[in-house]
């Protein structure tokens, strides 16, 4: 098996004939923190949507541990161990924080089809284990005090933490973060950086889109830069930072967050 956990080979995605991703390739190593940057509208989120099965690219291959996963439905992608957060936070707003995180335990839960109707000793054991895991994650993300609060009532920064806790609850091998620092203040961003390091230390591979350059440069080990759906540069953070093509792309477009 190759050392790369995720390989994207010549992927293209079109919308109504317009190209959103153009012949994009990249390889993510196991255990890496991999950054994707680029101006707004460059196709970064579209790429994540292709990996997680929300979109099916028209061309190219997406290999997960050497196996083609292009066109696989989103829920099966999650079962394979690829979990994500969303740029526009998608929590179950009316449900409590604990219940939100519990959704991440879905694929780990071993309840049988009849446990929806009748409970068995195995059910009680499984249920307890999963809630305990939720408890651990709430402690890890400093969320315990909000356990019963509806997720939608909490601040932006806290909601981002809940989303990460939810994805992590599924014990992913690859965690995909779509602009995890968007809307966070300086302190929260710092905290987030440390959290992502800890997640890496658990053995989770992390892929992230982020606009906060300081954070990306300090955190990631490898970066691909996308503009107009195509790769314009790739390499170590230090290299990418000084690449004239990248500088040009950022000066030539609006750098600040509008929306993608």
């Amino acid at each position: 098996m190759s050392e790369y956990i995720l390989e994207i080979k010549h992927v293209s995605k079109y919308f109504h004939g317009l190209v959103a991703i153009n012949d994009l390739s990249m390889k993510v190593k196991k255990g890496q923190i991999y950054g994707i940057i680029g101006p707004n509208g460059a196709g970064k989120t579209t790429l994540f949507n292709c990996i997680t099965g929300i979109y099916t690219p028209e061309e190219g291959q997406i290999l997960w541990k050497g196996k083609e996963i292009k066109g696989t439905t989103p829920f099966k992608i999650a079962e394979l161990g690829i979990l994500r957060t969303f740029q526009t936070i998608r929590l179950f707003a009316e449900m409590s924080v604990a219940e939100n995180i519990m959704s991440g335990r879905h694929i780990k839960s071993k309840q049988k089809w009849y446990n929806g109707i009748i409970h068995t000793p195995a059910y009680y054991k499984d249920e307890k284990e999963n809630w305990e895991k939720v408890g651990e994650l709430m402690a890890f993300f400093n969320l315990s005090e909000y356990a019963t609060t509806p997720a939608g009532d909490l601040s932006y920064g806290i909601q981002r933490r809940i989303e990460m806790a939810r994805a992590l609850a599924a014990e992913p091998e690859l965690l995909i973060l779509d602009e995890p620092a968007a809307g966070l203040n300086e302190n929260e961003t710092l905290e987030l950086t440390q959290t992502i390091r800890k997640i890496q230390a658990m053995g989770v591979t992390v892929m992230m889109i982020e606009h906060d350059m300081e954070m990306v440069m300090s955190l990631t080990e490898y970066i691909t830069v996308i503009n107009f759906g195509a790769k314009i540069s790739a390499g170590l953070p230090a290299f990418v930072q000084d690449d004239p093509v990248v500088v040009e792309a950022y000066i030539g477009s609006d750098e600040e967050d509008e929306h993608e």
Partner: protein
Amino acid sequence: MMNKTSLIALALLVFMGFYPLFVDSAWLAVGTTFLVFSVVAFSQDIILGRAGVFHMGHAMFFGMGAYTTAILNVHFGWPILATWAPSVLIPMAFAFVLAGPIIHLRGDYLLVATIGFNIIFIQVLENDVFGLTGGPNGIFGIDIVRLFGIEFASQTYMYYMAFILLGIALFIMRNLDKSKFGRAMFYINKDEIAAQSMGISIRYYKLYAFIVGAGIAGAAGSMFSVQYSAVSPEAFNVTQSIMFFTIVLVGGSASLPGVLIGTFIMFVLPEVFREFETARYLVFGLAMILTMILRPRGIWPVKFGDIPSYLKKGVK
């Protein structure tokens, strides 16, 4: 220490338990039907309130259960007890076959498709297919439940059988809500994309909701046919489906007390106001509009956050 909701529930349980001692036979029958309709409303709520599937044809599954018992008993001479299992299983099988091809459709399309199934079901009944369904008049002379030589014939027996049925339904609802399956339905209901991204198969859980809901409605149908010892198509038409649909939304989706309140308002109140025959549905329509404007999530909305107590320790 009991909280307020549990106390209300206990009081209600005691009241419902002794209800037959205080009322005449007409009100006893109303009480029995209230219990049966509550069970149907709960099963509708699994599909509509939990999984969030826009389903407006639930009276069909209720009717399938009723007609299964009626046909097997009257035409084939099965004892009522023996018809219970098929009256649950047949609606479940139909739920799987009918919902399967359309379950991926967007909400409003499902609404119309399920209405369509219900209308087809009624035409099947009215056209007396295979000479089994009895046409517009339905089927008469359904037997009573007999067990160990006891004949459960009186309306009081009927009431308590319905009472036990409601108990079973509530037991299942509670188990569902506290399982991976019930939670998955809520996640899908609240945000399909997020739910899928957590590894939840939309199709599987929506079908699961449909099948379980159909089975419970079928059981209620069997009870209903025995209570009235007759079945006829108009008890299971789209108007009835709309009533079950409205019960859930007026009472409060996915809320156990809400659905009971909804059933009371939509079924028992019209019985109380029978003398205002002509104007009552006008008032009723106005009440539906007003309720939705004042309480868009229903009279008693669902409360989330029912998590194990050890997780609440950190809550300030």
